C-alpha cells in the first residue's frame, strides 16, 4: 500500500467527512479551481461542486465570519487560511465571536479554521509564523498541531466533528516530508491527548509539530552515548494532555520543552509553570526550554536556519541537563 503524505492525509480527512456529512463544506482563497495553495483541496471542487467548495475573496475576516454564520445555521464549515500568518486578519472573528458564542448565548460554533504554519521553507516573516499561542490564550477555542500523517487525518476529522471552534495548525514543512501507511478505516485522534513517540528514562522532551522530528533525531544521536530521551508529542495544545506531561516528568525527572514558536509567551513557559506547580518534587534539574529566539522569522536562509531550533540544540541542552 502506498504511503500517505501529511498533506494528503488532511485532504483525505476532509474528503471523508464531506462524504459522510453533507453539512461539511470548505471555504477559502483558491480552494476551488486551484485546489488550494498547497493542494489540500485538490479535486474537491469536481467531486463536491461549488456549493460545498467555495472560493472566497482575499478576506480572512470575511471567511471566518461567514463560517461562523453558517455554523450557527447548522453547517460544519472548514475555513482555510492560505497561510496561518494571515489568521490574524480574522483574529476578532475567532477570539471575540467564535470562542465566546457558546458562553455568551449557548450557541456552539462548530467551525474548523485551518492553515499552514511554521518555517523551514524559506518563506520569510509573513509565511513562516507559528501563531498558535494567540489562540491557546483564548478560552473557548481548541487548538491542535498534528505532527504525523496519522494525526493530521485523525485530528482534522475530530476537529470537523467537534461541536466547538477548532484552530487546526498544519505544518507546511511536513506536508510532503512525512508520510506513512494509514489504516483504511474511519479513525479519529481525540483532541487533548498526547502521544509518546519514544520511550526513554533520562530526560523527557515535550514538543509538538515539526519539532517532533528534531527531538527524535536528537534522541537517536544521544542514544549512542547512552542518554535515553523520552519524546512526548502533545498533538493538542488546547486542551493539552497535562497528565501525560506530568507522568513523563515524574518518570524521568528532567525535562526539555521544545517548540518552534518564539520563547516569550510560548507554550513552553506555560508547561514549565505547570510542571513546577505539580511535579516540583520530582525534578532533578532545571526545566529547560528550547525555542526560536524572540524575533520575527528571518527571510535569509542561513538566518532562518539559525533561528529554528536544531538537533544540535537539543543535544547540547540534553548534555547539560544530563550532567546537572
Amino acid at each position, binding site marked *: 500500500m502506498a504511503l500517505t503524505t501529511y498533506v494528503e492525509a488532511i485532504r483525505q480527512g476532509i474528503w471523508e467527512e464531506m462524504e459522510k456529512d453533507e453539512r461539511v463544506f470548505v471555504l477559502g482563497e483558491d480552494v476551488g479551481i486551484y485546489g488550494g495553495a498547497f493542494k489540500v483541496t485538490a479535486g474537491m471542487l469536481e467531486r463536491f461542486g461549488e456549493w460545498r467548495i467555495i472560493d472566497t475573496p482575499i478576506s480572512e475576516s470575511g471567511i471566518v465570519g461567514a463560517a461562523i454564520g453558517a455554523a450557527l445555521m447548522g453547517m460544519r464549515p472548514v475555513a482555510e487560511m492560505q497561510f496561518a500568518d494571515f489568521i490574524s486578519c480574522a483574529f476578532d472573528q475567532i477570539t471575540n465571536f467564535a470562542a465566546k458564542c457558546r458562553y455568551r448565548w449557548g450557541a456552539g460554533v462548530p467551525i474548523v479554521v485551518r492553515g499552514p504554519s511554521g518555517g523551514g521553507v524559506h518563506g520569510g516573516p509573513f509565511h513562516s509564523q507559528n501563531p498558535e499561542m494567540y489562540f491557546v490564550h483564548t478560552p473557548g477555542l481548541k487548538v491542535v498541531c498534528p505532527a504525523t500523517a496519522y494525526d493530521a487525518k485523525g485530528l482534522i476529522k475530530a476537529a470537523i466533528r467537534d461541536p466547538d471552534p477548532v484552530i487546526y495548525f498544519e505544518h507546511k514543512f511536513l506536508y510532503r516530508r512525512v508520510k506513512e501507511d494509514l489504516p483504511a478505516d474511519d479513525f479519529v485522534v481525540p483532541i487533548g491527548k498526547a502521544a509518546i513517540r519514544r520511550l526513554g528514562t533520562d530526560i523527557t522532551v515535550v514538543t509538538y509539530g515539526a519539532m517532533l522530528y528534531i527531538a527524535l533525531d536528537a534522541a537517536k544521536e544521544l542514544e549512542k552515548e547512552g542518554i535515553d530521551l523520552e519524546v512526548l508529542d502533545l498533538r493538542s495544545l488546547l486542551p493539552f494532555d497535562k497528565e501525560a506531561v506530568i507522568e513523563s516528568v515524574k518518570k524521568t525527572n528532567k525535562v526539555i520543552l521544545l517548540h518552534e514558536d518564539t520563547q516569550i509567551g510560548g507554550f513552553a513557559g506555560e508547561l514549565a509553570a505547570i510542571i513546577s506547580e505539580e511535579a516540583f518534587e520530582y*525534578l532533578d534539574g532545571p526545566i529547560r526550554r528550547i525555542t526560536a529566539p524572540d524575533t520575527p522569522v528571518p527571510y535569509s536562509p542561513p538566518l532562518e536556519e539559525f533561528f529554528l531550533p536544531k538537533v544540535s540544540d537539543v543535544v547540547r541542552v540534553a548534555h547539560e541537563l544530563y550532567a546537572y
Partner: protein
Amino acid sequence: MAETKVIMPQMGESIFEGTITKWLKKKGDRIERDEALFEISTDKIDSEIPSPASGVVQDILVKEGQTVQINTVVAVIGDGSAKPAAEAPPAKEPAQEAPKMKEGPAPGGGGPVPGVEEETEAEESPLDEGVRSSPLVRRIAKERGIDVSALAGKGTGINGRITKRDILSYIEQGGKAAQPSVSPPQSGGAARSAGLVNQTPPSPPPMKFTGEVERVPLTAMRKAIAEHMVMSRKTSAHVTTLFEVDCSHIVKAKEKQQAEFQRSGVKLTVTPFFVQAAANALKRFPVVNSSLDGDTVVYKRPINIGIAVNLEWGLIVPVIKNADEKNLFGLAKAVNDIGERARNKKLTPEDVKDGTFTITNPGQYGGLAGTPIINQPQVAIMGMGGIKKRAVVIDDAIAIRPMIMLSLSFDHRVIDGAVADQFMADIQKQLENWQS
C-alpha cells in the same frame, strides 16, 4: 550601652549544629550573667546554656525546635536601657543586625518589642544551606529518612550536586556510599566483608505493619546514639569475654568506708572500685587504652574512663579524666559528680571528650552480663553485671559469695583474646584481693 549577642556554642569538636529545645527566658525577661538562658540538644549532649551577660533578653532569633549551625546568633541580651542597638554589630552577622537598628529602643522594662517577629522570620532561611541537590533528591531523602548531607562531597552532578543517580545508588548500597569521616580507614588484616556488614541500617526494608502506630521522630541524641552504635559495629571486630568476680572484698571495703565517705558528702557505690581496678589494669595493658588510626595503633598516655549514664532521654558517657591519678575517694566523688550533672543537663563538652576506655552497667536492673558495643574510637568497653549472692565452690566447699559477671567487649583488630583475658584477670585479681 551594651548589647551582647548569644551564639550557638560549639559543644564538642565534631559538632557543627545544635537544636534549641527550650527557651528558659522570653523576650523582655531580665537575666543574670551565667543564668540558664536556653536548653540545647546536640548529637553529643543535651545542655543548658548560660547567659554570657546580665541584662534583658532583647531578642530571640531562633525558635524552639530549630536547628542552627554553631556560632549562629540565637539571642541578643541588651542592657535594658531604652537605647537603640546601633553600635553593637560586629561585621559577622550584618543581616541579623539590620532589623534591630530599625526597630529602635526597647521599652525600659523590656516588654516585647513590636515589629521584631517578622524580621526574625526572614532570617531563618539562610541557615538551610550546604549540600546542593534537587527537589527530587530532597523528596527521596525525606521519604527514606536519609540526611542528604551524608552524601556531601559525593555528588556527581555539576559543582558536586547530589543527583537522582547519586541518591539512588546510595540507597542501593545500603546508604553507605558516603560517610567518609565516620569509620577509621580499614587496613591490613581488618578486611571485612562489605556485603555482610553493610546490610545493617540505614536502609532497612520499608516498614510494613497493619495496625495503629505512633510515629515519633528521633531526638538529636537518639539519632547520634543510633549512628554511633551502628558505626562502631561496622568499624570494630567485636569480641566479648566474660569473667566472674568474687566481690566479697570490695563489698566489705565499701561497707567499711561508706560512713567515712558520707561524712565528706560522698556516696560510695561499688562503681569506683571497678574504675580504679580498670585504671590500674589499663596502665599495665596500654593496648586496651589505645585507638586504631589507619595502620597505626595510637597509645594514649592519659587514662580517661567514661562511665555510661542512663538517662530518661537517652544515654551519655561522661569521662573521668586521669582516673589513674585519683584515689578511691576521688573516683567516688567524680562518679557521683558526672552522674548528677548528666541527669541535670549540666555537662560541658569537656566532660564527654577524650575518653580512652568505657565502663557500662548492664547489671543496673539485675542483668547477669551484657555484650556492650565499643565506644569508638576506643578499643574496649567493660560491662558490669549485677552483683548477686551465689553458691560458689571454694577449696572443694560450697560457699555463698557476692558475685559479679564482668564482660569485656574488645576490638579484635587491635587486641587479641589472650591480652583481653590477661587484662580481665588483672582486674579480677585486684577486686578479689582488695585491701581497704
